[in-house]
């Protein structure tokens, strides 16, 4: 049973590195969820604003970043970002190539993609808020910002949760593509381990299983969150 040693936590084992890789994958995905939440909110706002130019920009954003391969977006951010950093470095007097840190590049690239999907999720959730509730809040004299904070945001978060779960799973799998920038997340670590031990099959299976653990755990987590936020609402399809 030699493979137990190769996968173990000893000095010749890859277990520790694989676990760190899995944690890095989680970290990149979390960071990209944050980036995507900011971008997604802005784009959803642009699309809902009713302003023609803002609406066009929002539509263009979601069409481009949902329709173009993720790998291409990662190249855009990584190479484009490194190019920009190098030029900025030259202006400040640094010579030579300066790379964008691969964690940052990965989080931004996956975040930009996730933002396009999140924008649609938030837009759908906003449209699901009953107009009567906003009217009622206005009728009792709630100002705009308070109305947004007390009435709209809590409901959007609840309606958006199932969609956000899907986006999270998508980003988790997209984060594997960040391995092309050299970031030692789960995919890259499996690749390095497979290459240096020549045990390709074993390490890709183990890497895949770790991804399955991550996706099924996050599925559980989102299910629990949905159950938690849904507590105060009536069960079943319709809302009162």
């Amino acid at each position, binding site marked *: 049973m030699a493979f137990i040693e190769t996968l173990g936590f000893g000095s010749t084992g890859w277990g520790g590195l694989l676990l760190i890789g899995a944690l890095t994958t989680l970290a990149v995905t979390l960071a990209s969820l944050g980036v995507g939440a900011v971008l997604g909110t802005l784009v959803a706002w642009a699309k809902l604003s009713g302003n023609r130019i803002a609406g066009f920009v929002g539509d263009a954003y979601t069409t481009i970043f949902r329709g173009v391969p*993720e790998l*291409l977006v990662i190249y*855009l951010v990584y190479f484009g970002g490194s190019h920009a950093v190098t030029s900025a470095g030259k202006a400040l007097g640094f010579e030579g190539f300066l790379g964008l840190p691969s964690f940052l590049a990965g989080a931004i690239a996956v975040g930009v993609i996730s933002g396009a999907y999140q924008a649609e999720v938030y837009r759908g959730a906003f449209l699901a808020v009953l107009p009567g509730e906003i009217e009622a809040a206005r009728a009792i004299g709630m100002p705009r910002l308070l109305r947004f904070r007390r009435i709209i945001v809590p409901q959007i978060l609840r309606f958006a949760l199932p969609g956000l779960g899907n986006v999270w799973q998508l980003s*988790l799998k997209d984060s*594997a593509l960040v391995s092309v920038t050299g970031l030692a997340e789960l*995919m890259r670590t499996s690749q390095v381990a497979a290459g240096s031990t020549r045990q*390709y099959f074993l390490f890709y299976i183990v890497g895949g299983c770790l991804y399955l653990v991550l996706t099924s755990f996050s599925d559980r987590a989102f299910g629990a969150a949905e159950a938690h936020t849904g507590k105060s609402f009536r069960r079943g399809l319709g809302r009162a």
Partner: protein
Amino acid sequence: MDFPFLIDTLGKLMAALPTTLGLFSLSVTIGGLLAIGIVWMRVSGHFVLERFARAYVFVFRGSPLLIQMFLVYYGLGQFPAVRHSLFWPLLREPFACAVISLALCTAGYTAEIFRGGLLAVPAREVEAARATGMSGFLLLRRIIAPIALRQALPSYSTEIVLMVKSTALASLVTVWEVTGVAQRIISQTYRTMEVFLCAAAIYLVLNFIIVRLIGLWEHRLSRHRRGMPVSSLSKPLQAGGNLGDAS
């Protein structure tokens, strides 16, 4: 804007488009056939088959496509038994490996979409068909498949767009399709933005055409649903028209 460079890049990328289209059409066809098999197992009611179908969907939807592709391309070649089998001429080729892994992966997603369509077939339609004496394959071909297909098409077109994007991963197992060529041009010229715009334009046009085609197909499949009166009870003859359309 450097137009000669843009046109030159676009030309180079277009030269790789047949590879992307080949990857896409082969994997969607094979994946669709696999998906039909998986759905059949999933709804067969047989315990082992159903379990297998569930596990298949879980594994292929839960892990990234890239790791599946590397498993097929690098992992399988590790075993002498595979290298000496009659599949080796196929598994040695990066293009074939990319198609196999794309097809296996999309089969998992497509199976769930088809199952959704199948569940949306109203029980009364099946009952009516049975009452007129249809059974078995005829029932499947005339009643269940057309309705299920029509219900599944909108989400299937989303999956198709995802597949167009997924073909980009084949560049990581050395298949030179559009994204691979774009990456090569970027690393040669460092003009990321221009190359990105050209490649993005190709993918967006491709997606637009495919989504339109599926939309047309859906339009055709729901021909009998347009122009249907709001109250179908007042015009019983409308039902005769429906039967004529379905054949």
